[in-house]
């Protein structure tokens, strides 16, 4: 055997090892992510599919597989309470996300101004997120109740004509949901924005200051665009909270007055479980998810694309 032979054999052995390692390197990440994907496929998409199938059946108290086509959807769209619930979600969700973003950003900007006791203030804005709404629901109900809460308090201070009876007014009750929800989530959004603000490069500000830009202009032109990814994360989290808002409604208004503050999540729960109409409940669940997808997919697409490019 010549030295070149053994060398070439050694190098081919190394090449073989490298390709084995290479295969492993290619396969391992996929292997590692596979269980999570499998879990998502089964427990998320699989269940969605099952719910969809159930929405095509006449199931009542327990799942039955007697197919009735789109009848449940027809019933759903003829159901007035569903229309109220769907409209409420748009109103509530829209207001909730918008106000949280604005309030969170405002608080973050204010807190970022080298405030003394920033830590304490930040904790105060953040702590509502720690509490579950079963815990705080009763308290908010008292606070917003005209005869027990804020209205009574302000009236006792001498402002006899002060009215704050949104909770008992069918047209305004939905806004009380917004109040409680914003209270709970805005601190978290503030934390997100604060982190984002702190991550912005100082040099940008120095350059702007040198150029003589005024403060609002600095914020408008520089800060906000830099915060776009933060807005993305915040919207994702807020949207998830809005859609899942079940505890909030049950604790604060119970869906009332009447069913003026019903949301799709509570509608679905009431019909699937309490009223033994699984078929109808499943149809409402599917509509709920369609709504989510309709908003989320375009948003995700635009954001993930942007990130890849920029």
């Amino acid at each position: 055997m010549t030295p070149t032979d053994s060398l070439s054999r050694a190098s081919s052995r190394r090449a073989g090892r490298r390709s084995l390692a290479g295969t492993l390197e290619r396969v391992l990440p996929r292997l590692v992510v596979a269980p999570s994907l499998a879990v998502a496929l089964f427990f998320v998409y699989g269940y969605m599919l099952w719910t969809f199938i159930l929405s095509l059946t006449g199931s009542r108290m327990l799942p039955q597989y007697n197919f009735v086509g789109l009848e449940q959807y027809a019933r759903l769209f003829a159901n007035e309470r569903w229309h109220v619930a769907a409209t409420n979600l748009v109103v509530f969700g829209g207001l909730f996300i918008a106000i949280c973003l604005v309030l969170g950003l405002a608080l973050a900007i204010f807190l970022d101004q080298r405030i003394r006791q920033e830590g304490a203030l930040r904790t105060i804005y953040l702590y509502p997120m720690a509490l579950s709404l079963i815990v705080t629901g009763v308290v908010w109900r008292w606070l917003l109740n005209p005869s027990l809460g804020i209205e009574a308090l302000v009236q006792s201070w001498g402002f006899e004509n002060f009215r704050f009876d949104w909770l008992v007014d069918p047209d305004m009750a939905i806004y009380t949901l917004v109040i409680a929800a914003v209270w709970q989530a805005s601190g978290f959004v503030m934390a997100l924005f604060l982190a984002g603000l702190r991550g912005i490069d100082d040099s940008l500000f120095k350059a702007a200051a040198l150029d003589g830009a005024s403060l609002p202009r600095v914020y408008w032109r520089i800060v906000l665009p830099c915060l776009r990814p933060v807005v993305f994360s915040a919207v994702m989290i807020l949207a998830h909270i809005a859609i899942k808002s079940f505890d909030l409604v049950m604790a604060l208004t119970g869906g009332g007055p009447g069913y003026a503050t019903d949301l799709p999540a509570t509608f679905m729960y009431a019909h699937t479980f309490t009223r033994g109409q699984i078929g109808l409940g499943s149809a409402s669940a599917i509509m709920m998810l369609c709504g989510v997808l309709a908003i989320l997919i375009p948003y995700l697409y635009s954001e993930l694309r942007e990130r890849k490019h920029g």
Partner: protein
Amino acid sequence: MDNVIRRRTPRARLLRAGLYALLIAAALVYLLPLVVMVLTSVKPIEEIRAGALLSLPSHFTLDPWIKAWSSACTGMRCDGLSGYFVNSIKIVVPAVAISTLVGAINGYALTKWRFRGSELVFAMLLFGCFVPFQVVLMPMARTLGWLGLASSVSGLVLVHVVYGIAFTTLFFRNYYVAVPDEMINAAKLDGAGFFRIFWRILLPVSGPIITVSVIWQFTQIWNDFLFGVAFAGFDSQPVTVALNNMVNTSTGVKEYNVDMAAAMIAALPTLVVYVLAGKYFVRGLTAGSVKG
């Protein structure tokens, strides 16, 4: 952000005072429900029936707290919340640990070992954030029955891990995206393997995001009611179920002070976590997790 508005003109000082005023006013609003809860939990029941929400107690008493912890009725058992605390811990600790670990590895694999379709996988995993729990209650019940995990702590842990993976993956993936690739690539060239790189290089710098993930998951799982009530056995009910039993009695007499005390006790762990670890939370978020 730095000294852009540090000019010491009187106008600036006025603005600054206004700023503090706004922040403090906001703080008061945020604190209002907590204040009401605390005040109500230290009043005797007669005062509550008679009085206003924000009035200071004329008789300060810690009896409601003691009762809530050790002798309030949550069914035929009248042992207060104490036993349920342990149940909640048994559920929360494994669930948080497992979901955080899985999220970390997922985030790592999806960002440092990009393969074709990794973005799609991420998007698909992300959808799990939006699943309303009521919708999956029934199929999950059937699945747990098949797996023989119905009415058990392990079943609940599985459920929470499954629906927590979406969030933890989101957090870790966003964080690791911002970690520079150079170190990883250098390690790869040196021949370091998948897990070695994770263990030696990425994990040590993951402190902040691990904190974020743990805090988030802890809060979500500790405060969960729906899965807890549906999938726990009679001896493994978490503290939220016990609290609900105390607070939502249908036709029994309600003791609001005990209810508030119980609510505060149930909320203490999460509150403590947020108060103590809040700054790590923000630090974790600052360290790149939100920049995409």
